[in-house]
């Protein structure tokens, strides 16, 4: 099968949908001839024109609100939020309006919109352009939250997000944009709420999201050399979360490491770890759960510091080893 990049997969999913459904359109800053800050929509204005590839002023709250209003009245907008850090400006419309309207209105109306936004560090863009704030939106009933880790997943999950009648926040990792995988040309949908076991293993489960899936796989390959069999689970969507697949894996391996790029404190790893600590899998846990996440600092500019701010392959390798040696004592 042909390989395309994650970036192309996102573009393809949007384009296929836009060809079929006039209600779908893309709105955001510099998404026209510029093609978006990361080039995701490059070429789309040429195909779909400026009405449907709608360049906006630099007005994140306005764009988000316009997306909500158009969704409520029959369109299916895709909003490109140029950097996910800027959700700080758009949040009122996303959290207080999009997520709540249907409930507040007693089940009337719906807000089928997708907020696509690049997140993560590694580009040297420093503290205000490198955050991973997905935990915020997972906390809000009414929203769905997606974090694809591969080109294949990106295309299929975006299709599902576009088909969904609810507001979906779709996190694209900047460093994944140029990664490739086999992606069918035709459309397909990956249901929201289905995790994928990206690698099977028996000794320990690593639940990893976005770019950390790849680092976990690298770590797993290294650990294999030492005879440690690692299972890597990629939740793919944080809301809804496929707790079943995660619990099943942990029940099998008895060990859990959770890894995300977002700051550890208050990150979604806490949700995953506690979900396990509350679940029947707790009884199968042979060692404390280990979470890896970003350190408690803003993302620094210097490239070496920047790397040190988030989990790297050796950190995952170490976490696995520590977990496997630290058997539960008292129980």
């Amino acid at each position, binding site marked *: 099968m042909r390989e395309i990049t994650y970036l192309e997969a996102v573009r393809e999913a949007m384009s296929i949908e836009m060809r079929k459904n006039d209600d779908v359109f893309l709105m955001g800053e510099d998404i026209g001839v510029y093609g978006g800050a990361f080039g995701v929509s490059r070429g789309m204005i040429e195909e779909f024109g400026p009405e449907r590839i709608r360049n906006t002023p630099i007005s994140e709250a306005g764009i988000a609100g316009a997306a909500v*209003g158009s969704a409520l009245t029959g369109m299916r907008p895709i909003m490109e939020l140029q950097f996910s850090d800027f959700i700080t400006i758009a949040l009122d*419309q996303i959290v207080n309006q999009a997520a709540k309207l249907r409930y507040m209105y007693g089940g009337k109306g719906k807000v089928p919109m997708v907020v696509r936004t690049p997140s993560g560090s590694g580009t040297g863009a420093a503290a205000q352009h490198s955050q991973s704030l997905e935990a915020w939106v997972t906390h809000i009933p*009414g929203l769905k939250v997606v974090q694809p880790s591969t080109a294949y997943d990106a295309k299929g999950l975006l299709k599902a997000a576009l088909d969904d009648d609810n507001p979906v926040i779709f996190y694209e990792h900047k460093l994944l944009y140029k990664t490739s995988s086999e992606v069918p040309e035709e459309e397909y949908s990956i249901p929201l709420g289905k995790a994928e076991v990206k690698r099977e293993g028996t000794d320990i489960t690593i639940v990893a999201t976005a770019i950390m899936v790849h680092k976990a796989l690298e770590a797993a390959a290294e650990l294999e050399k030492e005879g440690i069999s690692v299972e890597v689970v990629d939740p793919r969507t944080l809301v809804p979360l496929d707790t079943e697949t995660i619990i099943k894996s942990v029940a099998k391996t008895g060990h859990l490491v959770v890894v995300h790029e977002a700051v550890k404190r208050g990150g979604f790893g806490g949700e995953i770890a506690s979900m396990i600590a509350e679940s029947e899998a707790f009884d199968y846990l042979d060692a404390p759960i280990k979470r890896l996440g970003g350190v408690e600092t803003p993302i620094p500019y210097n490239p070496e510091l920047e790397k040190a701010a988030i989990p790297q392959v050796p950190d995952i390798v170490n976490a696995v080893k520590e977990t496997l040696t630290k058997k539960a004592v008292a129980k």
Partner: protein
Amino acid sequence: MEQTKTLKLVPELSNEKLKGLYKQMWLIRYFDEQVDQFFAKGMIHGTTHLAVGQEATAAGACALLSDEDKITSTHRGHGHSIAKGGRVDKMMAELFGRTTGYCKGKGGSMHIADLDKGNLGAMGIVGGGIPLAVGSALTAHMKKLDYVTVCFFGDGASNEGSFHEAINMASIWDLPVVFFCENNQYGMSGNVSEMTNVENIADRAAAYGIPGVVIDGNDIIEVINATYEATERARLGEGPTLIEAKTYRWKGHSKSDAKKYRTRDEEKDWRDNRDPIKRFKEDLVEAGIATEDELETLKKAAKQEMDDAVEFAQNSPMPSLDELLTDVYA
């Protein structure tokens, strides 16, 4: 059309329609006065924001809108809802938290919506509805539908960033939306003259290259005319208008408000000398459209409608606890 000339009405409205508006204004007033009493008696929980004294803006701005046309409303939205065709029984039931309410008891006073009638809903976030109205107008524009969206907001809301971002977007895209500012002189307590450095909120239209119009919001005829012109302009694809209607809320901001930020004299002046209902009544009578008696009958009918609504609400069932978890996702 002798009488409409006397009324200085620009669009043509039948006498029936005008009398209907008169009754509607009473319905709005009765509704909010009833709510006020229920709150005072502790019969309704939560909070509420009453628009007594502002009946002309809601009724006038919606007078010519069809069910296809949309509005976005605010925390002070009962009047908008009624004016856009909302049923007072379902509204009152909502305030009582009943299943028969507009939101099945889940939204309450601040979130009444009636999508079938084009009421996109009351928003509790000040300024929150402005970008939403632009989105609604964007739909009309993109789908080539000819509805207009009237976006209600207050003087206080005009200091929110959302006001600026949204109106700018509407202005560059010439969207069919009317920004209707009900300047009732105060936010919660801040007087508009302390909170802005301009004489009129409508002056802010200059920042977006759109028309800004100042009107007497307590004169329903002026409200109808200005909204008519703005909606016509919008439907012709000429873009948005910012209308500022000067008005006044007779009651406090919300259920508990000592109103220390203004004088009783000021309140009395607006109440005695600028009552929008009284004014419309005089206009109708002078123009020979209705007699005092006829108008009294309409007023009584409004009262009756309210009483029925209250009965409906009070006799409606409470939602079951199962309702808690439904309606989150579509």
